[in-house]
């Protein structure tokens, strides 16, 4: 693939070490790819380290032409850095591109970057910007443009800017803006980042969907209004709740050349949230591909002759306690409730067995730094005894969930097991519009989490004291300091030792019932190519094509 230009002699030493671990059978290939590419090793070079050749990109065989119709929610657009739904990003992927891109196999591929290098302790990054990229208004794409985007991402004064949290190592905590010395424009195509603390996830974070690269003239607000970007498509129509149409921009000389942009147009159709409406539309030939198929509908879409693709992910649901609310401030209560639940049963009843059983610590076996802990033993009798010891045998617990098929079913399965254990529990189901109002503060409820490529990422977003998304109100000094330490370590085994401790703390403290890892599914007509489900819901329609 011509995207890769990193010479082999600049391979990060840790990557060579990981390759050794793969050879020794200590590390899986997927984990290796995520870790090595996060350190700036190109995918080709990473495969090379394993003594393999990189799989040839299927996209190169694409046929040009055609319109793809996809069912997807079209939400009201807003400033990309405040995006809170992947769908918002997916619409704009045709003209707003990313520095790097997370692949289905767990590797990172540079897009607007050509390559990047990390120093030994992950405090200094050197980014090489791709040559020959132009904005669709004709201007050249330079390092200054990238620096401008880093400034935007670091601006913590903008409400809902979730990139600010991901860029903490570049930000001045006093002003909530980028530190003046954090970024240096070395020349037109080189940029140096100086981090205040080690952060191995910085580059991975720029692949996340709110990190779309915008033009310096972008004023914030709706990116569809004046669509200046580097990509090969342009929006033609965008109606919230109805649909959007994206067409190839024939006037723009896209850097990717013939390597993508096969479709003439992409038509997004928003058919609401009821999957039976999607099924009707698919049956009558109104749509070619779905955004995501869930629950019982997976079999139904199979039955009408659509092709299923699956992505194994670290996406999950957390049935968690908020420790600010009694009785959940008592660790014994949390442990007892958690103990009463068999996660395998929850997976079967709540998600039709379409995933992997998880271990209540929110680190997934596909995460590079996952440490294997002893298997969990559900113990309903012990759970009731523990509650009795706390004098809470008659306490009525209330489990709140959103009115959504699999989330509600999962909570029902959890509640049913608690009931079987003799615990008094009631269920409350709230409609989506009111549920998200207060999602972080319910005493006992469920939240679905999208996957992040590294295990430390989600731990720092959700379980570090005082974080905005810390819905458990978990505050543990040992956890915080261990996590900070782990986030500076590129070495696999060393980080895994710390990770084991982090996972143990989460289990010991009974922070949550995290029953399973979701596999994600999508259905498409047989003639839709290269459009498999992506673990982080990314719709790279740039590379989809239709068999004529």
């Amino acid at each position: 693939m011509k995207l890769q230009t990193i010479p082999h002699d600049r391979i990060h030493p840790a990557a060579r070490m990981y390759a050794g671990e793969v050879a020794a059978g200590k590390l899986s290939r997927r984990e290796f790819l995520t870790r090595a590419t996060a350190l700036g090793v190109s995918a080709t070079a990473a495969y090379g380290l394993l003594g393999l050749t990189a799989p040839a990109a299927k996209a190169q065989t694409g046929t040009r032409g055609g319109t793809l119709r996809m069912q997807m929610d079209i939400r009201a657009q807003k400033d990309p850095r405040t995006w809170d739904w992947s769908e918002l990003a997916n619409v704009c992927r045709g003209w707003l591109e990313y520095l790097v891109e997370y692949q289905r196999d767990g590797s990172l591929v540079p897009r607007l970057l050509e390559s990047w290098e990390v120093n030994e302790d992950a405090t200094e990054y050197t980014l090489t910007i791709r040559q020959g990229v132009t904005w669709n208004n004709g201007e050249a794409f330079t390092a200054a443009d990238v620096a401008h985007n880093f400034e935007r991402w670091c601006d913590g004064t903008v409400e809902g800017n979730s990139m600010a949290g991901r860029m903490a190592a570049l930000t001045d905590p006093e002003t909530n803006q980028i530190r003046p010395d954090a970024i240096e424009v070395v020349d037109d195509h080189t940029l140096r980042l100086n981090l205040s603390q080690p952060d191995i996830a910085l580059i991975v974070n720029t692949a996340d969907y709110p990190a779309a690269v915008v033009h310096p003239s972008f004023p914030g607000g709706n990116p569809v209004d004046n669509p200046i970007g580097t990509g090969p498509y342009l929006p033609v129509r965008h109606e919230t709740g109805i649909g959007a149409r994206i067409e190839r921009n024939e006037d723009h000389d896209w850097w990717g050349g013939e390597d993508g942009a096969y479709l003439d147009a992409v038509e997004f159709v928003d058919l609401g949230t009821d999957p039976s409406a999607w099924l009707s539309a698919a049956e009558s030939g109104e749509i070619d591909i779905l955004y995501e198929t869930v629950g019982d509908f997976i079999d139904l879409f199979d039955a009408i002759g659509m092709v299923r693709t699956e992505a194994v992910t670290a996406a999950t649901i957390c049935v968690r306690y908020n420790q600010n609310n009694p009785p959940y401030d008592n660790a014994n209560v949390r442990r007892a409730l958690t103990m009463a639940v068999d996660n395998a049963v929850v997976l079967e009843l709540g998600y039709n067995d379409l995933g992997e059983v998880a271990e209540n610590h929110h680190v997934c076996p596909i995460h590079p730094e996952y440490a294997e802990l002893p298997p969990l033993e559900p113990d309903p009798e012990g759970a009731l005894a523990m509650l009795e010891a706390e004098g809470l045998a008659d306490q009525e617990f209330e489990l709140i969930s959103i009115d959504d098929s699999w989330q509600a079913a999962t909570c029902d399965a959890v509640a049913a097991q608690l009931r079987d254990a003799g615990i008094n529990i009631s269920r409350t189901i709230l409609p989506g519009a009111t549920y998200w109002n207060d999602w972080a503060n319910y005493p006992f409820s469920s939240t679905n989490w999208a996957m992040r490529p590294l295990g430390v990422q989600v731990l720092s977003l959700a379980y570090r004291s005082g974080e905005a998304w810390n819905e458990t109100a978990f505050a543990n000094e040992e956890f915080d300091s261990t996590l900070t330490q782990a986030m500076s370590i590129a070495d696999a085994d060393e980080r895994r030792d710390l990770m084991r401790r982090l996972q143990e703390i989460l289990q010991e403290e009974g922070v949550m019932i995290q029953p399973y890892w979701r596999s994600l599914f999508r259905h498409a007509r047989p003639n839709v190519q290269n459009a498999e489900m992506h673990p982080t819901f990314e719709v790279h329609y740039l590379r989809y094509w239709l068999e004529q």
Partner: protein
Amino acid sequence: MLFFLLRRTGTLLLTALCLTFIVFFLTNMEARLETLAKTQGSVRMTDAEVQGWIVRNGYDRPLVMRYGEWLGVVPGWTREEADGPLRGRCIDRVSDPADAATFCGLLQGYWGYSTRFNAPVGDVIATRLAATGMLMLWVMIVMVPSALLVGVLAGMREGSRTDRGLSTAAIVTTATPEYVSGVVFVAFFASSTVGLSPFLVNWGVIDGPVLFLGNARSAIDQITFWNFTLPVITIALYGMGYIARMTRASMTEVMTQQYIRTARLKGASFAAIVLKHALRNALIAPFTVIMLQFPWLLNGVVIVEVLFSYPGFGWTLVEAAGNNDIELLLACAVVAVIVVLTTQLISDIGYVWLNPRIRIS
């Protein structure tokens, strides 16, 4: 007559005022404003950010003041940002703050801005109403003639086999709510695995996988027989049964009148009696019922438009309510009041015209 019209218009305005104030009050409760802030800002904003958003967008001032702004009798809010430009209700909609009017509300012809659809409410309501208008038109075209025909046929000879059969059918259709009949129709006509379509495909009658489309989204661009039949039939059948029953009752009553007997004794044919003597008198009651059916149809379109994802007025109402889109909901309320009261007015006037014995005012 003029006084009657004036009084009716007054009632209409007063009802609209009361209803919109209730909607305004309900949508501006604090929890609802937080929902709005989170859908507009970011789902995972902190409480402080939510409060900041509410203040910055002018939702923190007294309820009555803001209701006045929406009406256009109180000057729109303005606010100086710490480092940015002047913002305000009237300023945000024009490019140059100097051009902004002091008042911008309903009285000035400004319906507000839809937060859900990112567009002026006036535009949203206009396009959606047009879409619903098309649906209603086809519903009326199908429903009224067939209902009258069924009613008249059933009422011509009370107690006959035709009457029993048609009446039973009418009761069944009107007793089946749209959310039941709609789903049944989709399963029967629009599924490639169950119902009628697999047989038709087998026999080579149809080319596509299904007979009718179970989804009416494509009808926005172009209405075809295949994509519009199911939603139209679903609404029409429900209303049809009711109107047919009314027509039948009215028809049977007319058929027992003295002048019908006179006509029969005079030797007029049965067809002439029905068409010339009975029909006009029998249609007075159904006319009112048809007019009063409009508000009920608005009800039905909410369910049917959501079921078939047809973005019309009812669909917009659901979207606006689900996302606490305050100004869009208010506009929906105004439209609903106007539709209900205007159809009532037309039905009253029409009644007088059809039945000379009745006087208004």
